[in-house]
């Protein structure tokens, strides 16, 4: 079982992604913004972060830059999940240090395929 952080300010998005990730047998922790995600990430081991771009207090790009600049979360795979599909948005995600970029709304099979690829499947 992998531990996966879902970071999004929209509660319905967090619930939707949680259902899809938990269906693969993984454990999910939710955060509403980058600051809350960093606070909840402290002292634990993580296998994957699913991160929205537009969030209050600390946006997704800044969260990923913070993760990559520290020791503990530097190697954790990050999938950015955004409503924005322009090339410029994806470039910003790669520049921040994201591993993958999905455009909302994410098809269930697409999200689960990426989670399987980056965090495996429970019991696998």
């Amino acid at each position: 079982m992998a531990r996966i952080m879902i970071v999004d300010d929209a509660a319905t998005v967090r619930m939707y992604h949680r259902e899809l990730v938990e269906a693969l047998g993984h454990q999910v922790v939710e955060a509403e913004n980058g600051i809350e995600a960093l606070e909840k990430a402290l002292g634990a081991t993580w296998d994957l972060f699913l991160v929205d771009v537009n969030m209050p207090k600390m946006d997704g790009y800044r969260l990923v830059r913070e993760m990559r600049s520290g020791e503990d979360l530097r190697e954790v795979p990050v999938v950015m999940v955004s409503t924005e599909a322009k090339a410029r948005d994806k470039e910003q995600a790669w520049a921040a240090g994201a591993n993958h970029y999905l455009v909302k709304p994410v098809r269930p099979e697409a999200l689960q395929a990426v989670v399987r690829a980056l965090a495996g499947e429970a019991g696998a």
Partner: protein
Amino acid sequence: MGLVKRQESGQGAPERERRRHGRAPEDLVRQLADPDPAVRRWAARDLAAHPGAADALADALEGERDPAVRQALLDALAAIGGEAVAERLIPLLRSEDAGLRNGVIEVLQGMPEAVAPRMARLLEDEDPDVRIFAVDICRSLPHPDTPRWLAGLLGRERHVNVVGTAIDVLAEIGGPEELPALRAVAERFADEPFVAFSAKVAIRRIEEGRA
């Protein structure tokens, strides 16, 4: 969303720094372009008391990259408020900079009187990203018409992510009056799993709140 009060540490000796510079409004406006971020930040803070500086603050905000100075500029504009500030901030919703956009959204959320007359135009903007940010403003906009605006949006909106964001906000702030719009949009986007899911959640939340 509340405004974050910044700590003074790491900024040198701010009081001594302040005394070295003029405090007249025209001096402060000039200091917004100073190479030292601490000087720019103090100038922004002090200009919060000068409504006539709104344009200078907005001009500086567009080019500012230092997060602490940017926050001071946003705080100053929030303190000044009013129609002119709203008019200057709304175009920044089109910025490529997510941090700037989110800061602007937070300031606009605190200006319901100035934002309300502009919301219809924002919710009909040709750019779906701007419509999403307009819906995000509604998330924390203390205005009684917000649920009605969003229900109206659901009736005409074709972009799935604008619809999804509006449903999410209505799940938080909607009431029984918005249930018909939520049921109708769930039907219209029946082949879109996320919309079907989020509409179900919103309807359940509103109905449970009513029970």
